[in-house]
């Protein structure tokens, strides 16, 4: 072992501390003049990329109805059991729609499995990350809160077409 310099052996300049301390101080001094990385949240908001998984929403087509056909796959795949779907039939033959579509946002873990499994591209993850509620009842989002016009979800739908 005699000729090998292990990492633990300090050189003389390291042993007397002072040069290394000066190096460290110089590093922090330089850092002081660098621009800071803080985003001052309530005033400035984070604009997520299209790969961001915010709260899951239902796509509302341009004719004003949801794309969802109430197949229940999302509810089935949801690992946190957050989604509840109740189906009903429309006037058109062999077409179904959800009478009740609820996501319990206290349970949702933002895994995007529902989005992945959806055959109709009807449920997608939005960029919305500001989820505030003051009681448990408010945390259950019904269709009124879940339906989002398709124009607001263009980014995510395109992302899904390219990468899913």
């Amino acid at each position: 072992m005699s000729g090998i310099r292990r990492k633990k052996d300090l050189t003389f300049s390291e042993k007397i501390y002072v040069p290394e301390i000066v190096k460290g101080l110089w590093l922090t001094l330089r850092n002081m003049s660098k621009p800071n990385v803080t985003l001052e949240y309530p005033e400035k908001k984070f604009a997520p990329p299209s790969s961001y998984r915010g709260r899951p929403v239902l796509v509302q087509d341009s004719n004003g109805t949801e794309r969802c056909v109430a197949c229940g796959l999302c509810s089935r795949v949801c690992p946190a059991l957050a989604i509840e779907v109740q189906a009903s039939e429309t006037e058109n033959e062999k077409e179904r729609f959800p009478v009740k579509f609820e996501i319990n946002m206290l349970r949702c873990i933002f895994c995007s499995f529902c989005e992945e499994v959806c055959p109709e591209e009807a449920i997608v993850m939005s960029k919305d990350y500001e989820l505030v509620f003051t009681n448990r009842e408010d945390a259950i989002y019904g269709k009124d809160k879940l339906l989002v016009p398709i124009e607001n979800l263009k980014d995510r739908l395109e992302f899904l077409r390219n990468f899913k």
Partner: protein
Amino acid sequence: MSILEIIIITLIKIIIMVTVLLLTVSYSVYFERKISAWVQNRVGPNRVGWKGALQPFADVFKLLLKEDIVPSSSNKPLHALAPFIALFVAFSTYAVIPFGPNVKVFGYDVQLVVADVNIGILYILALTSLSVYGITFAGWSSGSKYSLLGGIRSSAQMISYEVSMGFSVAGVVLLAESLSPVKIVEAQHGWMWNIVLQPIGFITFLVSAFAETNRLPFDLPEAEPELVGGYHTEYSSMKFAAFFLAEYANMIMAAAFITTLYLGGWQNPLVDIFNLTGTWAVLLQVGAFLFKVAFLIFFFIWVRWSLPRFRYDQLMNIGWKVMFPLALANLIWVAVLIMIFKF
């Protein structure tokens, strides 16, 4: 001057000193947070007042409004006494620090120091040794193992570093031939600052001052990862605020003491170069003192956010095997300066 006049002048000096001190303490807490933020590329407190300038007052009010919890297993009288020992010691040491030359105000010859004690250095060393009691009592009386460990570490650390501190000061005292801080500052006129004449003594004193004030890299008494909060783990509300104040007052004290001993106190070379006299000279000199102290406070904070904490055995090794011999070597160097170069 009659006795009444002396008392009134001293009282005015005390009031000015304490006010400036309290403001400096609260704003050094603010700057500690700001500088730490800049070092870590953050913003720091910026919500209360202009750029967060009222943050220290918000902090104080928060601490005052908190519940004062006294642990049931504590020794209550000592638990209540300890923070105020620390605070008293931290504030009383400023009495002998000169912050300016003699000035004439309304016909009175006023010395810009609260008390010109002829053994001022001894007084400061004695009081800083007393501050060990505050921390040790706090650690012991809390009845908690973390506090106790913090208190024990602190007493061991402070007693060890007092040795090298004392020997570094001996060098300064030899050169000035006096124990009075006023005389020591006067002996460093022009550029004859002690940092130039005895740089090794300056380094040993600086390191000991860091250890004495429990600042990083020697903040083992309150090492958060190992000891929760060290000696003030069991303190809350007003008593915690007292410890907090005392810690920062100690830091400013150390800065003022280093300035007095090694950086020429209120000596300002500009005054000698331009042969200034009167009000401007005094203002420049007091300004020089404040600037030096402010720079040292910045240095203390800067070091805290740059260096990691020493291990306990490393701390003791440095204290006894490095700092003590270096301080002795500095003493010999000063003796050589006096005997051979006739300083």
